[in-house]
């Protein structure tokens, strides 16, 4: 069983993990243009989303921005 810890909640994947961060955001229906992502405490720039491979056990923080200020 593959597991990712996303925003403090463990998410289990029955089959393979999404290969990259880009794919994970797609699966979660999160717009990559309005999210800041950290993988194991390291900030990932938008341009690296499709190159960032995911592995079981990683901790992912997704900060989704909504408008208003």
């Amino acid at each position: 069983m593959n597991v990712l810890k996303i925003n403090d909640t463990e998410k289990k994947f029955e089959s393979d993990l999404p290969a990259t961060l880009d794919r994970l955001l797609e699966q979660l229906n999160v717009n990559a243009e309005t999210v800041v992502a950290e993988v194991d405490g390291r900030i990932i720039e938008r341009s690296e989303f499709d190159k960032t491979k995911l592995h079981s056990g990683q901790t992912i923080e997704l900060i989704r921005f909504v408008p208003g200020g």
Partner: protein
Amino acid sequence: MNEFYEKLKKATVGIAGLGGLGSTVAVALARTAIGNLVIADFDTVEKSNLNRQHYFINQLGEYKTDAMIENLKQINPEVKVEGYKQKLTAENIPEVFADADIIAECFDRADQKKMLVETVLTKMERVVVVTVSGLAGYGRSNEIVTRRISNRLVVIGDGNSGTDLNLPLTAGRVWLAASHQANAIVEILVDEIIK
């Protein structure tokens, strides 16, 4: 007590955007006697801003940066305020806020919020960013929370209530989020940033 005010006096806080969040954070930090503020906004004061932003009728049409410098002088002339009127971009943010210990993200648009946070975290060493996501609407005061994501990132808000959901921006709820920002900034300056 003296040590508390000494630390704040030496501090520099950047405020990116001077709308409902930014104008409130600026006023709160000036009243708290933060030594140095760097404020940035390219916009002018409009009538529709007055329901929640700290400007006055006689300032309509002025650059928010200029209007805020005037207002801060009236509140606390001891605070040194630097103003920037150019649009903030991933390229100029590290320069504009080069002296900042902490930056308050006070933009309106979601993609701009993301841009600023990403820029600070990837291009500026040691600088802390205090950002907001989810402050629109009214009521639900206790859903606005401060979360420390990492050493350099604080996220405030309910994470969900955006103006894209057709929710209004109301003074009370916007100020709640801005007060969380100002409060988190003071806490980090006093407890963590040693000068």
